[in-house]
C-alpha cells in the first residue's frame, strides 16, 4: 500500500487524508522535512496559499519540497495548485515551480462567487463522465506548458491537469465523496 503524505501546515489536510484512505492509501500528515523522507508521494491541500508559503519559508521547507517533487509524485488542489505552479499572478508570489503553469489567484472572485459544477473529463483521463467539482475562491489556470495534459476544463479553462507524475486540480476533489481523482493519483504513485 503506497504511503502518501498530506502537507499539513494549514488547510483541509484532514479531508485529503480521508479521501486518500478511502482510495486505498496509507495517508500520513507531513509538517517537517524529516516527514517528507517517510512518504512515497505528497498531497498539497486546499487552504490559504500565502499562509502555507509563510510556513514553508519559516520552516525551511522550500528546497526539500522542490527536491521531493523532482523524483516523486505531488498532487495539489486549489492552494496546492498555486504552490506547484511555475508562475503565480494576482498578486505575484513565490512558488515551487514544479508544474509548467501560470495561475491567477482568486480569479473567479470572492466567496460569493464560489460554486459547485459538473465536469465532463476528457475520455483519455479514464475518469467518470460526470464529476462534481467544488470551487472555493479558486484560481484559474491562464497558461499551460507543452508538457501539461488537460484532463478536464470548465468555462474554457483547464481545471484538472497532469504533467508527468504530478496532478493538479483548481477545485477540491477532497470535498466530494467520489474518490476517483484520488485513485487516479494513487495510480501514478504505484506506477512509480
Amino acid at each position: 500500500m503506497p504511503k502518501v503524505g498530506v502537507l499539513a501546515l494549514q488547510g483541509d489536510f484532514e479531508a485529503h487524508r480521508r479521501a486518500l484512505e478511502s482510495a486505498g492509501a496509507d495517508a500520513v500528515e507531513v509538517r517537517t522535512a524529516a516527514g517528507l523522507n517517510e512518504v512515497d508521494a505528497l498531497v498539497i491541500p486546499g487552504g490559504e496559499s500565502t499562509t502555507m508559503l509563510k510556513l514553508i519559508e519559516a520552516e525551511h521547507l522550500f528546497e526539500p519540497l522542490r527536491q521531493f517533487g523532482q523524483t516523486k509524485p505531488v498532487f495539489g488542489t486549489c492552494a496546492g495548485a498555486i504552490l506547484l505552479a511555475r508562475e503565480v499572478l494576482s498578486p505575484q508570489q513565490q512558488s515551487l515551480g514544479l508544474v509548467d503553469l501560470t495561475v491567477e489567484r482568486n480569479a473567479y472572485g470572492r466567496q460569493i462567487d464560489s460554486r459547485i459544477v459538473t465536469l465532463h473529463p476528457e475520455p483519455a483521463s479514464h475518469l467518470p463522465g460526470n464529476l462534481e467539482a467544488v470551487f472555493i475562491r479558486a484560481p484559474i489556470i491562464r497558461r499551460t506548458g507543452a508538457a501539461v495534459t488537460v484532463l478536464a476544463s470548465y468555462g474554457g479553462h483547464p481545471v484538472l491537469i497532469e504533467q508527468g507524475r504530478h496532478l493538479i486540480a483548481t477545485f477540491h476533489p477532497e470535498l466530494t465523496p467520489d474518490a476517483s481523482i484520488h485513485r487516479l493519483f494513487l495510480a501514478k504513485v504505484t506506477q512509480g
Partner: protein
Amino acid sequence: MRFLDEAFRLKSGLAEMLKGGVIMDVTNAEQAVIAEKAGAAAVMALERVPADIRKEGGVARMAPISKIREIMAAVSIPVMAKARIGHFMEAQVLEALKVDYIDESEVLTPADEEHHIDKRAFKTPFVCGARNLGEALRRIAEGAAMIRTKGEAGSGNIVEAVRHIRTIVKEMKQLTVLGHEELVAESKKLQAPLELVEWVAEHGKLPVPNFSAGGIATPADAALVMQLGAEAVFVGSGIFKSNDPEARAKAIVKAATYFKDPAKLLEASEELGVGMFGLDVAKLPESELLQTRGW
C-alpha cells in the same frame, strides 16, 4: 438532510480551507497587511478590537464600509466582517459588499434580543459564537457554517475559551453513547433540532468546522485550545494590543500548525515580549460579559 445542501457545502467548504489557521482581528489596511504577512489565513474587519470596545463602552456596530473596503483591497486572503446579533440589515450590506464571511458576533452590541439572523437566507457564509453544544446547534440550524467558542473577547484571558471548547467537546462525546430515545430527550434539553443531535451522535463532531475565539493572547493559548479540539483560532485583541504585533502574529500562526509539538512551540514563543494586559473574568460584573449575549 437540508443543512447539508449544496449552498451549505460551499459555505462550510471555505471554513474547511481555514482549518489549522489563524483569523486575526484588524481595524485598518495597515494591520491587515501585517496579518497577511505574518501568515493569517483570514482577517476579521471590525470597528474597534474587543479590548477597546470593553474599555470605551458605547454601542459597537459593524465597521465603517470605507474601512472594510480598504482592508479588502489591501490583502488577497479572505476578509470577514462582524454584524450585530439579529441585525440582518448590516449582514445584507456586508453581503452586497462581498465580504467572504460574516461573523454574527456577541462582541458587537446586539440589535435584537430575541432573534438571531436567518442565515439560510444568505449566500455569504456565517460564523457564530457558542458556549455549549445547544447554542452551537441552534446557530447551525439557523444556517451558521462555522462555529467558534465565544470565550470572553477582549479579556486576554483564555479561561472562558477553555471552558467553552471543553464543554462542547464533552457534550458531543456524551451524545455518541446514547440510545435513540435518549437523543430525542437530549434534543429537547439542548433546544436543538433532532436531526442535528443525531448527526453529532453518529459522527462525534459538529457538522461544521469548530474554531476557538475569545481570550487567545499567546502561541501557547492557541495550541492549548487546538489540543482541546478547536480546528483553528481567532485572535482579536491579543495581537494588536500586544507590544510586538508582527512577531506575535507570526508566532501564533506557527503555534496553530505545530500545536502538538512543544519544541516548535518553544521556538515560536522564544522572541516574544509581554502580551496584552489581561482581565480576571471572574471579577467582571455580569453586565460587562460579552459571552452571555446571544441565546
